């Protein structure tokens, strides 16, 4: 079995996701979702990761995960190829309070074990 390589990019957790606008609509609680990346919009004023997630009923829901400006993310090593379409990824997110499939990105864990952002503790913000 190949050793799992885990690389932490902890500093990325400090990137101010909500710089362009106020973040009052996002919950303070975190949630974990797993899905397939559809698109990584590496654009200003905010990057967005579009992820297809299959819910418990078998329905595919497209989540929109908001992240920071590519300017600072780019200086920290993030590239348009960081979230390739088709990649299966588990995300730690702060969803909007309304329950819509939109959230603020916190961290991501890939199938090979590498991590983007700060992944601490278990799911649901514990």
């Amino acid at each position, binding site marked *: 079995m190949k050793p799992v390589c885990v690389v932490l990019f902890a500093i990325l957790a400090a*990137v*101010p996701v909500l*710089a*362009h*606008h*106020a973040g*009052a*609509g996002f919950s303070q609680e975190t949630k974990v979702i797993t899905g397939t990346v559809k698109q990584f*919009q590496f*654009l*200003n*004023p*905010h990057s*967005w990761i*579009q992820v297809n997630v299959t819910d418990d009923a078998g329905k595919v829901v*497209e989540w*929109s995960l*908001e992240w*920071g*400006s*590519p*300017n*600072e993310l*780019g*200086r920290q090593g993030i590239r348009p190829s960081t979230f390739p379409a088709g990649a299966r990824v588990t995300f730690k997110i702060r969803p*909007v309070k*309304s329950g*819509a*499939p*939109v959230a603020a990105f916190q961290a991501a864990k890939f199938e090979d074990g590498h991590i983007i952002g700060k992944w601490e503790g278990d799911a649901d913000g514990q």
Partner: protein
Amino acid sequence: MNGTRLVTCVALSVGFVLTQGMGYGQSTALTPFDKLPDWSGLWMMMGGTVFDTATQTGKGGVLTHGLREHPPYAELYEKKYEEHLARRDVDRFPDVITNCGVPVGYPRIMNLPDGYEFLVRPDEFYIITENGPNTMRVYTDGRPLPKKEDTWGTYTGVSVGHWEGDTLVWETIGLKGDRDNDSILDRTGLVLSDAAHITTRMRKINDNTLQAVLTIEDSKALTKPWVVTKQFRKQKPGLFMYDYGCAENNRNPVNTATGETLILGADGKPVK
């Protein structure tokens, strides 16, 4: 014309020509390049994007009403601020830059995420930010500040400064303040009036830290001067700055009728 009068005439003429050639932008008091401090590199603002000393001391609660150090507001502006906070709490106080249309102005340009460059020339100093993007100019060529009646209120105002050793000192007037309800200091709703007069002192406090101390006076909004500090940390060498197209993929437009900041979902329609 006798000899004395001729000499006098020539001397006066030469003097006239020389003074006409000077005007703005030419001063014998310019600090030469080799005497100016080195503020080169890419810098990032330290602390949160909220304008008060609490963010510098880690007291926290920068987005929570009641835990911040309020400016010494006069009664009318304290009421405005309380109203802004209340609207902010229900997402009805949008950040004016969210619709990507206006500069952040001064002093908010000292309060942004993403990269900064501080360009120092003998006759002028520039603050250039990625976020926005935004630019501020401080004229250090010896010109005076314009008279108040020769300003008309802009987001960033007019700034004139001089060097005191390694410290750049400048004054800013001609700010629009809250006149058109489109200029804030931060997204909690801090505002100033069009009477604001800001004196800034900026210098390196160590090799990797630039510090700006702003003394904000405002005869309409403040009961006394309000002193705030912002610091900037130098980033590792070799990094690039990039452009910033605020409208490139703005999925957070403001509903201008309600003041609500929207989030556009995958289908481009608002979700909430």
